[in-house]
């Protein structure tokens, strides 16, 4: 636990340091830049709320990837599952109208169903034709990308709009801010808590984790590895789909071109940085959201281009992932040296 925290703080600190050097080299003031970065993501009125809201798709797709990786399933279909989840929410919100108390849960379920359906397709291919989910989920991303684009440019297009987008979904399906905070934050936190519970308290979660660590042992122990594989695909697909639903319901309230942005790939990256830990995924997701949210403000105040954030993220990932093993090995080596010296 302490080691993980050291690892994370070290990574972030190094990234900020390298970022500062780059800014100095180009004649910018790093202190002022970082001040505006954190001002606009944490300390200004309602900026914290924006950061949290922006974290929702990052954390949910990250959670999806973390759960899959920790269970030994290579689901890399979060981008596609997110889009299909968003499409299902849009469809539900365009054609069905219920009072908000029913509409919101209904749309949440639609989002999860959409994502699970898309992931389930990959699971089906694996079970029926023994096709690796790794490649199938990646390919399904492309299909989802162009399928949703077709859907919003043709059958679902808002005729009054100039670019490809659907009309807005029914107002009873919108997630309105309560005070400054969007309720999607609560749904994200509930998803993290729920998944933690499934992973650590459910019988199935136990089997998933052990299968991720040693699938032959799990199989010989009587775990139904094949059935678990399908469940993991469906659950992680549902999480990515939920991310898409949240983007639509909390954000533009319609499906517009480029809706998925880079959320899902960032989510996969977060899962890797978090070493597939669920709580770590939440924390790193929030942290990346600080970077991304603050970047816009930073660009407003200073002359530093917001692309610097991409650099900061990349360096954070590299330092944390590279130092994770290295830190362990170094600490172990130091302990061994100390022990050896004690012999004389």
């Amino acid at each position, binding site marked *: 636990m302490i080691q993980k925290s050291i690892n994370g703080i070290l990574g972030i600190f190094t990234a900020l340091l390298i970022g500062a050097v780059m800014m100095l080299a180009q004649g910018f003031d790093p202190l002022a830049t970082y001040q505006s970065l954190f001002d606009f993501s944490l300390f200004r009125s309602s900026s914290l709320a924006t950061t949290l809201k922006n974290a929702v798709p990052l954390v949910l797709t990250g959670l999806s990837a973390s759960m899959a990786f920790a269970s030994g399933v290579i689901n890399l279909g979060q981008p596609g599952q997110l889009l299909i989840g968003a499409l299902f929410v849009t469809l539900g919100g365009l054609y069905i109208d219920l009072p908000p108390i029913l509409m919101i849960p209904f749309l949440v379920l639609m989002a999860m169903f959409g994502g699970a359906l898309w992931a389930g397709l990959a699971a089906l291919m694996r079970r029926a034709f023994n096709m690796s989910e790794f490649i199938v989920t990646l390919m399904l991303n492309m299909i989802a990308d162009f399928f949703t684009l077709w859907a919003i440019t043709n059958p679902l297009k808002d005729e009054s709009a100039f670019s490809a987008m659907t009309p807005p979904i029914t107002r009873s399906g919108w997630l309105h801010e309560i005070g400054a905070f969007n309720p999607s934050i609560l749904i994200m936190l509930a998803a993290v808590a729920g998944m933690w519970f499934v992973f650590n308290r459910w019988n199935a979660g136990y089997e998933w984790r052990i299968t991720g660590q040693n699938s032959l042992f799990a199989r*010989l122990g009587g775990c139904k590895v094949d059935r678990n594989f399908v469940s993991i695909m469906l659950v992680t697909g549902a999480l990515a789909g939920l991310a898409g639903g949240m983007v639509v319901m909390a954000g533009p309230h319609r499906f517009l071109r480029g809706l998925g942005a880079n959320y899902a790939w960032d989510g996969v990256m977060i899962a890797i940085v978090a070493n597939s830990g669920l709580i770590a995924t939440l924390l790193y997701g929030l942290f990346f959201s600080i970077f991304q949210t603050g970047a816009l403000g930073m660009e407003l105040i200073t002359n530093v281009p917001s692309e610097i954030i991409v650099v900061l993220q990349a360096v954070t990932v590299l330092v944390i992932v590279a130092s994770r093993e290295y830190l362990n090995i170094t600490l172990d080596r130091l302990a061994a040296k100390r022990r050896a010296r004690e012999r004389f």
Partner: protein
Amino acid sequence: MAAIEELISLNNIVKVYPPNVLALDDVSISFREGEIHALVGENGAGKSTLMKVLYGLVPFNQGNIFYRGRRVRFQEPGEAIAAGIGMVHQEILLIPEFTVWENIVLGSEPVDQWGRLDEERARQLVGEKIQEFQFHLNPSARVEDISVAARQKVEILKLLYRRVSVLILDEPTAVLTPQEIPLLFAELSRLRASGHTIIFISHRLEEVLALSDRITVLRKGKKVATVEAGETTRQELARLMVGRDVLFLSRRKPQTPGKVVFKTENLNFVNNQSRHQLHNIQLKVHAGEIVAVAGVEGNGQFELVNAIMGLNQPTSGKIFVDTTDITQTEILERRRLISFVPQDRGKMGASLSAMVMENAMMTHHRLNPRFILWKGLLLNFNYAQIFTDQIVDRFKVILSSKFSPFRSLSGGNQQKVILGRELLLDNPFLLLDQPTRGLDVGSIEYVHEQILRIRQEGKAILMISADLEEIFLLADRIVVLYRGELVADLPSDKTNVEEIGRYMLTGKAIPE
């Protein structure tokens, strides 16, 4: 400093495997030119580590090494070989698809002026070496077609080809049958006569006494003593090795077996290359009986275990436990009847990175109703803790916490957890695949006691073992697997090590 007559001396070697496993604790040892020097000790005593330190495979923390009067510290095995020290590892590291001569010259091939492999010359060189050391090998045979003993010869020849004068052999007899061991020893003696120095690692005391000039005993990373082979006895060596007196007696009490619990009918398994891996296996194990499957590794043991456990579907035939046909059933259903201790703890028996508790509760989490809450949705982790404590108490597991990772336990304690988990399933049939592999003497004794205890409880036990001593100690009946066939089925008190060895080697009672 190093005395002149010593060829190699290792002084005050300390090796700590990170983070804090003290593998070698101030070990000093020296080897003389032209001797056969045995290193004995239990598993984990540090024999292999010491030799890997010398060979440059493992870096060491303290101490120094002198070789031919010069201080050396090999950074990699290549340097050691160049200096004339070669090591044959426990696992044979050859390319099966290559021929004997190809394997031998690989890495230092004779070439013509264009840098191409000079095949003729290579064959000739290898042929000369085979002649010189009288190794009875066919240089053109493919390694996959020759016996394990012959492969070992290839490994040795590979080093001799590189003009190595010091040979280190790590447990060379572990893979051999009783008949092959004297042949290896004759070859080693010939090598000694031609001026080679041989260091060989073993934990089998008879062999050590028969072959070596001097013997060094290691225990728990420390050197206990170096003795002249002519001036010691097996009993004394055993006491030095273990630190107390060891009994070599079977405590198996006579017992009449009950009904048939486990049975196979015409079990066949053909693998993808359509070669028979298991051929018409007819096997019966009665209640209160231990049946041992003897055989050289790779004669179908793996396929038999996989078929019984449900990892592979047999091509034809049936498997029964307690009159239930389990040939087609799911693994979880089999686990209601079969307890299974696999040979490889880290691969099949446990998840090394999971907690001890999570390893202890495997299978029970589905079969034991006390683990199950909410109709199987939730796991009862309170009960899991109680259950783990039970295993720890009953099987005397030494551990820091049941929440620490499984890999932090010693091999013996890992095996106790696995054995405890499987015994508490309380199944009528137990499949034990090399249940004492890699354990120290104390743990082996403990595991043997447990196996005899469950035999007394009337369970049926099928044990696969490569260790004939263990087989004769425990088994009521011995069957021999040879090229996928059961070639012998003998009561253990009506046969002997030599006979079983012949079956293992040739598949027949009398060799042609």
